[in-house]
């Protein structure tokens, strides 16, 4: 039996709406993943530290309040500094096309815009983690 995917779902910054994050967290849970939910108002430092302690394979950040460029970038930096640059960072929320391109250039693995169907997110994560595990097994 393959081990469950561990994923951290976080709400960063001052953004106080977590319905989207909860829907996604529940969807990932139903897809057989172990989802660690952080709750609201997490700083990038808290998110990175939680990701390290929980030894997750993926961090998913929900951002609806427009601070995504700063927040995502900072989480990526902090993970690298902590020696956990291997952890994949994905996200979702209200993020413009331009910013999606910009963030993916900076190292965010994938961003899901509003209206993305849950199975799309699940599929993408399962495939990406499978690929990452296969890569790690080679080393």
């Amino acid at each position, binding site marked *: 039996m393959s081990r469950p995917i561990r994923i951290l779902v976080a709400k960063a910054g001052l953004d106080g709406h977590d319905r989207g994050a909860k829907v996604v967290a529940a969807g990932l849970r139903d897809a057989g993943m*172990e989802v660690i939910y952080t709750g609201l108002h997490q700083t990038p430092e808290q998110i990175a530290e939680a990701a390290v*302690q929980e030894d997750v394979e993926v961090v998913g950040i929900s951002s609806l309040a427009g601070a995504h460029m700063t927040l995502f970038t900072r989480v990526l930096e902090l993970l690298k500094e902590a020696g956990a640059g291997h952890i994949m960072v994905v996200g979702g929320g209200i993020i413009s096309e331009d910013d999606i391109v910009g963030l993916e250039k900076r190292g965010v693995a994938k961003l899901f815009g509003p209206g993305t169907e849950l199975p799309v997110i699940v599929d993408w994560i399962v495939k990406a983690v499978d690929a990452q595990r296969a890569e790690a097994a080679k080393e």
Partner: protein
Amino acid sequence: MTYDLAEKLVNGDRLALAKAITLVENRAHGHEDILEECFRNRKPAVRIGLTGAPGSGKSTLVNAMIKLLRAEGKTIGVVAVDPTSPFTGGALLGDRVRITTSESDEGVFIRSMASRGAVGGIAEATDDVAVLFEASGKEYVLIETVGVGQAEVDVAASADTTVLVLTPEAGDSVQTLKAGLMEVADVFAINKSDRPGAERMALDIRSMLEMRASEKGWTPPIICMSAIRGEKVDELIDEIAKHREHLASCTSAADRERTYLVVKLKRAVERMLKNDLWRGPDGSALEKIADDIADGTTTPYAAARQILDRYRARSGQGE
């Protein structure tokens, strides 16, 4: 590589600790070596179990306890267990929502854990995660169970002191008389005690305790508290310390350690046996056996005996 990981962990590397927990939790290749190494390097911590119904405030209490213990400079490892879905294998681990530590505080390490099919309130590997925490130098290990019902008492064997977190709505005096959970509490914490019924509940528990022969020489204290407001949490920690002193006065540390290790040993043997059994040919033959039971060729009881006989023969001790 595993030896390397254990060594780093013992030297305080957080990333190594996190990775080691994953290996142990997954029972992955090499986890036994890590446990072995960590066991040799551990210094027994103060192990505190926190159990109680869903929503009784266990995580909030953990949060409040971390704040007080950190103020005293104690280092803490927390393992917080939440249930795995028996249907999908997935889990939503939400204990971190209530636990708000400073991200820069290296004195605390919190790990969420899914129960992965274990039904005693903790996960099968929870105990071993405590060993890793001890090897990494944590002075306190807090074990938070899944939200339990009446009979999930495994944490009591994993902790020195078991705190049962109750709320004023948790039932009348008959509930306090029931066997199981009420019996494993070394300390009763009546949380949310600003709500009506807290005093009543404390009285019910007290009279239950009076009816019970206190052969252990310890009458569990009852604390009406509020974790979210931080009220009486200090008193709770004092009572935990008193319970520890009590343990020290009636049994030697070596004896207690022995009891704890026997439980650990049994759990390890049972786990290995189970893995061995289902990893063998009977694991893969399970579907066929299920068909036979379903169409009436055999019964679950006869099939179980058959499986066990085959297992014994396979391991060279057939009867």
